[in-house]
């Protein structure tokens, strides 16, 4: 048998510790009985119970879920359409510009995205009268914008892999272009779109920076509430909430990964 060296296992362990130690400590301390975050006072689930009575926190969680669901859905629609245009239309005026614009949010600092969207919303309110003030709508629009970039990238790579003769075959058998899109293209790339939606959902759920810029009264998202609470001193129920969020995110990411892998195996 081939003897394995020590180097690889050690670096792997160090890497995992570096990545996951903070998360593990957070999860562990969410079950801490003590009010002091850094002192272990025995196992307890009391902070989960207290979380249930924290109306502000629950309201923020509800806002976040609504925002994430709506913006993930919108991002998936926009991302799918832009990916389709970018991969299936061979050449058109401004294609390069569109490619750049679509993927810009991937590399642009969040602060700049947030600031520029805020300025846009203010200018729109002054000239068009819509959106009236900042709130849920503006957060959803902002999140859809940058999440659409991620969905576009995922959908684009799937569309490129897809055998284009499938679409041609449907055309050949008498289906018009729109029919082909809904009958053939959409079902074939559906798993990629589901994982794109899940990714957009998680991105929206944990965004703090952009939301802080474009949100308004009554539309504080969960990350915003947690951040403001932590500034006043860490309360252990934040740990409990964070643990729940980590759980949700982990499940979503795992499902997305599995779907993508299954898709790759099939084709």
């Amino acid at each position, binding site marked *: 048998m081939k003897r394995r060296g020590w180097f690889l296992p050690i670096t792997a362990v160090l890497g995992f510790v570096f990545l996951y130690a903070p998360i593990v400590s957070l999860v562990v301390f969410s079950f801490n009985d003590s009010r002091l975050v850094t002192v272990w006072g025995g196992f307890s689930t009391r902070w989960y119970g207290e979380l249930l009575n924290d109306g502000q926190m629950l309201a923020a969680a509800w806002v976040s879920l609504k925002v994430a669901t709506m913006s993930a859905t919108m991002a998936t629609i926009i991302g799918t359409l832009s990916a389709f245009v970018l991969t299936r239309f061979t050449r058109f005026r401004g294609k390069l510009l569109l490619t750049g614009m679509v993927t810009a949010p991937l590399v642009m600092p969040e602060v700049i995205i947030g600031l520029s969207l805020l300025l846009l919303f203010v200018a729109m309110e002054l000239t068009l009268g819509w959106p009236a003030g900042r709130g849920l709508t503006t957060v959803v629009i902002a999140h859809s914008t940058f999440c659409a970039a991620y969905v576009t990238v995922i959908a684009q790579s799937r569309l490129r892999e897809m055998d284009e003769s499938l679409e*041609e075959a449907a055309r050949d058998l008498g289906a018009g272009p729109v029919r082909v899109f809904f009958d053939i293209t959409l079902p074939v790339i559906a798993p990629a779109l589901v994982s794109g939606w899940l990714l957009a959902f998680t991105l929206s759920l944990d965004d703090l920076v952009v939301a802080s810029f474009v949100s308004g009264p009554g539309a504080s998202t969960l990350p915003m509430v947690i951040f403001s609470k932590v500034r006043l001193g860490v309360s252990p129920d934040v740990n409990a909430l964070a643990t729940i969020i980590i759980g949700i995110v982990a499940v979503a990411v795992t499902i997305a990964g599995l779907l993508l892998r299954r898709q790759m195996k099939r084709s």
Partner: protein
Amino acid sequence: MTSPTIAANTRPWLDPAAKPFISIRHITKRFDDVTAVNDVSLDIFRGELFCLLGGSGCGKSTLLRMLAGFEVPTAGQILIDGQDMAGVPADKRPTNMMFQSYALFPHMTVEKNVAYGLLREGKSKAEAYQRVAEMLRLVKLEQYAKRKPHQLSGGQRQRVALARALIKQPKLLLLDEPLGALDKKLREETQFELIRIQETLGVTFIVVTHDQDEAMTLATRIGVMDEGVIRQVGEPREIYEAPNSRYVADFIGSVNLFEGKAGPAAPDLMRVETGDLGPVVVPPVEALVQGQNVWLAVRPERISLERHRPEGRANVVEGVVEDLAYGGHLTAYRVRLDNGRVISVTQSNRLRDEDPISWDERVFAIWQPGAARVLTK
């Protein structure tokens, strides 16, 4: 070439008054600066099984895609049954295509794949699925109706693709390398299956292939394509026995080509002075000027090998067997002539216990005057 076994009315291309079913007129297709198809004109008749044969990148697939409506010709006209196809999108054409990758819809069952075209046509579900059942019977897949494409073997997928392309009873069926993805044994069986189905339904087929054996077996006529142009159109036998150029002679089967100059015109046999073989006699060729540059094409199987110099025969050359390959029904020899030129010869192995010519033997290669084809380009 005349062949008494086939009645004249099954070969409409011999009749100058016959009306073609598909007319391709001066079709050109350019992609940026690459000319994929260059001024091709072709007439195809009803009920034909026409093969477009050529290497990769010769423009055969582009021509097929223009017929299907997936590519728009840069110039020229396509008529199908008298109707101009310009501006008619792929979904409105009376053609169907069988794709090289089969392009079966992965999320639909076999039955739904085949029914797709009928349902788009507005047929009722009951009627569509009844026709699907008949079609699946024709391609012998009735018990696989509920399977998904990924649960089928390569040969079964090929038949689903064929059934799906035939279900709308197109005027013209286009097949892009229909047997390309099958293994050799299955391919041979499927060739005859394809001919059977084509004859049963009477649909006109245009097949694109790079495989010359496939083209020979399937086709009523073959069009040999190279660099965007059609080099020769003819029946398989004509293409093989009477190629019109060195390119076609060399592309179809293997051939020995010898360069030479035409001798004086003669009533029965004329001479060609070749550099490699010296004087060779061939049947007289009209419109050949004395001293004109010509090439002689001799198929390897038309040459025979003897151990002793035959008496009183023309076209005898002497050499040494440099290499041989035993292939069961025949043996392929490479004979090096005394001037260094190597020729290929194949001998069929008729007798079980003959004493075969072997390596390094001195041999005489002989062929009939009529075995050589004189080419001028």
